């Protein structure tokens, strides 16, 4: 019986105790709910009660301290923290919390002294420094946190534990050189941390002065055996656009890692992507010379040829772009042939590949546009068309061929080529329209105005097509002057000659029309063309005079605004007389407020004024 009674008693007591515990948990949750719902006073009441009844419960203690802080009742926070410290004087977190409360009270001196007391308790334990530093960071007392971290690092067997945090703190406080020193110490002691260091550095090297400071730090500790350190230094050089230095470091990496040019190739690709073609070509060439048996040699050769081509284009394109008509941009044949040879090598290395066709297209283009070698270009384009009828470069080759035949005076052959493109079912409509426009132009040159207009009809209705404007212009000319076909034939012939770059002969033909008072629209255009032919042949004084005459005709000549604009161009680009150019552009703005050349004239004025100032 007694046994049974005992069991009942134990069961009852247990049950009451459990209920008691469960009741505390419910109350605690209620307190939390009050806290999050914005009733801190009610939450405080509950937490105080719970803490009073169970002072050893860490959860209740933390919640109570938190609510005191949020209610700014710092004295109460200090009181419970000091009570706790009296019992548990070795608890570093209590020092951290107490210091934080003093810091929030605005008593920084007391806060720092409490944190120091915490560290003193176990000053040979580096982790304590880290813990207290974290409290300082939470209060955004970064300089104090740096001090703790530095001291912890000093006594630690593993200083790397502190370096990353220190680097972050230095970065936050904009002490970039010190941040770089910390990252450097990481990579020197633990090269495997390469990515951490790389990412850490990337976060601040875009700040003013940070990049140079970082480079100086890494240069001082240069260790060629530490490849990861070299990688970082090279990427810093890339960031600062010190390509020569980056190149030297990548060369060393390449040798050290026995990469057979792969590291250098990556570097060259990066340069190419940054549009640093000159330097990229140099690096590609270095790979080709040093690593003939490397697996990336073919890619290096293609990269080299493309970099040369890009660089060549950059240096040669702008000279005569402002001219309405100009001779082909011929260039030093030796230099062009050097580029062609590089492309040719690619054709040999990758026969029957798209890269080879691309290289062939480049070769044909260079022969046509840079060397005026029509026969050579035709041979290349024909080979491409025959070998690779489905290549993306085939249509372009056809178009180039068609243009070459026009220049050679073989209009029938040219027409045949453009007709082939029009009939080709697999090419896009815009490409077909281009061919239609070109064929219409050929018809115009031949004096077949009706068939020319028929061809243009298809292009004109394609409003979104880039060719439709050109088509409209040509159609207008043929329509307006349809009743005076004899003069139109002369004009068409002059246009044909100008397309063939026979500017002197074209000028003579234009002049016939220009002097004919009876053909109003054609006469105006012919006058302008005479001046444009003079520009093409660099006869600037003569063209200035003619353009002035046209401009003076004002509304009698629909090209008078264009004449002024071209005059401004001559002074800007050919005569290099910027003040005169500005004067003419301003004159254009004043006299022709509705001209389509206003925006260009304004842009030129602003550009030239900036240059002068």
């Amino acid at each position, binding site marked *: 019986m007694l046994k049974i009674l005992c069991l009942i008693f134990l069961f009852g007591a247990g049950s009451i105790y459990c209920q008691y515990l469960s009741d505390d948990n419910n109350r605690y949750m209620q307190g939390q709910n009050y806290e999050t719902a914005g009733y801190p006073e009610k939450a405080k009441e509950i937490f105080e009660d719970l803490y009073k009844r169970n002072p050893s419960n860490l959860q209740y203690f933390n919640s109570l301290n938190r609510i005191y802080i949020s209610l700014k009742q710092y004295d109460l926070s200090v009181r419970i923290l000091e009570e706790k410290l009296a019992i548990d004087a070795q608890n570093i977190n209590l020092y951290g919390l107490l210091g934080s409360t003093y810091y*929030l009270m605005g008593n920084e001196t007391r806060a720092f002294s409490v944190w120091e007391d915490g560290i003193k308790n176990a000053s040979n334990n580096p982790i304590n420094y880290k813990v207290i530093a974290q409290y300082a960071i939470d209060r*955004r007392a970064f300089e104090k946190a740096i001090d703790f971290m530095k001291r912890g690092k000093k006594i630690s067997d593993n200083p790397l534990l502190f370096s990353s945090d220190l680097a972050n703190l230095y970065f936050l*406080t904009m002490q970039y050189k010190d941040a770089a020193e910390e990252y450097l110490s990481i990579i020197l002691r633990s090269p495997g941390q390469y990515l951490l260091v790389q990412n850490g550095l990337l976060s601040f090297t875009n700040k003013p002065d940070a990049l140079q400071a970082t480079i100086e730090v890494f240069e001082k500790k240069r260790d060629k055996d530490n490849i990861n350190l070299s990688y970082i230094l090279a990427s810093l050089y890339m960031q600062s656009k010190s390509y020569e230095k980056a190149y030297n470091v990548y060369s060393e990496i390449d040798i050290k890692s026995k990469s057979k040019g792969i590291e250098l190739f990556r570097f060259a690709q990066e340069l190419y992507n940054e549009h640093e073609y000159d330097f990229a070509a140099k690096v590609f060439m270095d790979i080709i010379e040093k690593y003939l048996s490397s697996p990336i040699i073919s890619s290096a050769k293609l990269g080299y040829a493309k970099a040369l081509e890009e660089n060549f284009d950059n240096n040669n394109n702008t000279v005569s772009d402002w001219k309405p008509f100009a001779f082909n941009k011929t260039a030093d044949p030796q230099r062009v042939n050097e580029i062609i040879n590089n492309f040719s090598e690619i054709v040999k290395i990758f026969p029957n590949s798209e890269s080879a066709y691309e290289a062939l297209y480049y070769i044909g283009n260079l022969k046509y546009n840079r060397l005026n070698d029509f026969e050579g270009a035709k041979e290349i384009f024909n080979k491409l068309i025959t070998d690779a009828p489905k290549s993306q470069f085939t249509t372009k080759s056809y178009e180039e061929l068609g243009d070459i035949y026009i220049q050679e005076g073989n209009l029938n052959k040219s027409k045949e080529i453009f007709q082939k493109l029009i009939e080709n079912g697999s090419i896009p409509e815009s490409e077909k329209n281009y061919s239609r426009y070109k064929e219409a132009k050929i018809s115009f040159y031949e004096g077949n105005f009706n068939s020319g207009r028929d061809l243009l009809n298809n292009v004109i209705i394609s409003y979104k097509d880039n060719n439709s404007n050109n088509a409209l212009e040509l159609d207008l000319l043929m329509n307006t002057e349809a009743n005076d076909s004899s003069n139109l034939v002369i004009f068409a012939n002059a246009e044909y000659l100008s397309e063939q770059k026979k500017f002197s002969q074209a000028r003579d033909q234009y002049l016939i029309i220009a002097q004919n008072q009876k053909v109003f629209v054609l006469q105006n255009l012919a006058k302008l063309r005479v001046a444009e032919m003079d520009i093409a042949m660099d006869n600037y004084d003569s063209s200035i005079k003619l353009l002035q005459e046209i401009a003076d005709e004002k509304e009698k000549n629909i090209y008078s605004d264009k004449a002024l604009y071209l005059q401004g161009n001559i002074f800007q680009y050919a005569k290099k007389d910027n003040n005169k150019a500005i004067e003419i552009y301003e004159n254009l703005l*004043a006299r022709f407020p509705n001209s389509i050349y206003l925006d260009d004239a304004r842009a030129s004025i602003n550009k030239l004024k900036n240059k002068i100032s």
Partner: protein
Amino acid sequence: MLKKILIIIIIIAGEAFSQNKIFIYMDLQQTDHLRAYGITFNALRKGLKADWLLNYRGGSFLIEYNDQVANECRVEGVAFDLISTSQAAEIYSTVQRDDNNMDVMRLEKAPKIAVYVPPNFNPWDDAVTLALDYAKIPYDKIWNDEVLRGDLSKYDWLHLHHEDFTGQYGKFYASFSNAQWYIDAQMTYENDAKKNGYKKVSVMMRDVATTIKNFVGSGGFLFAMCSATDSYDIALAAHNTDICAQMYDGDAADPDAQSKLDFSNTLAFQNFKLEMNPYIYEYSSIDVQPAEIGSQENDYFTLFEFSAKYDPVPTMLTQDHVNVIKGFMGQTTMFHKDEIKPSVIILAERQVTNQVKYLHGNYGRGTFTFYGGHDPEDYQHAVGSPPTDLSLHKNSPGYRLILNNILFPAATKKKQKT
């Protein structure tokens, strides 16, 4: 022979006298409304006199003839007519007729402009800076150091960049606390506060707001956009309390902050409710929420029409070539009408709603103008959005409202008609 020479002289003189005003019309015929303000502003800087013809052809400008100004108009693409004195007299007579709601406002001296921006700001983050740069109107950039050391007295007009005067860093914490730009911005503010002897950024910002208020009180012109409007007034209202949560200033906000707000200290707003949740990207109930606006297609605001002869200031501020303008959002998009002080003049609102876009008021000897939204030509300008290219929005009516504010301080004060 002498007779011929005399005739030529008379013709030349006649030509010269007949073209002695540059008339920059601002209606739909204008090719570049925004640069027209720059031309007028820079003409004033050259010492030329200009007249603002309120409500005449979209609020046109009449500037005394000067070759350089005419040339600038052409280069900048600003359409204008050269008119004779008699033509000008005719315009003046039309404008001043009692039955026309028009008036002439003489502009005499270009105001000295300051733009309040933090050092790490991007020009495209601020519509006013974009507009000033585009219109080629010169300005100085100032920040807390300059404001606190009293440099505002050097300026007539102050613009507040998209800014947070409450010290809560734009309340971007929830979305961007780990973003580098947020971390950098917080450090910049904290360092600046430390440099100026403040323990908290929020306290420094409150003092900055108060200094700016004093600038207005002593005759300055204040123009604020986006979050600089409501956050500015909130900072003024909260001068006796702490509204910043722990992640913003290190300690908790005052739980009774709402009841401690002092609305008598604000410029434009009253009786608003603070948004105390630090994770919610909103300062208070002043701002109109996207859900209240609905779809972009229906977001337009309407300019009020004021009597040019009796209310010249609001008339100047609302000069535009259209009176219904497409809306645009911002951290602060529009203001709830019921939280605006009765003394404040409403310049533009969304019709049939309680949403106010543009307002103006007086404080002391100066004035303030608040314009909701971030960028009039970018409906939802977000963090990291590319800059708006104003050469594609030369005729932006929304941007015109900004530039009205630049010129209105140049106007000669007239006696109020009674």
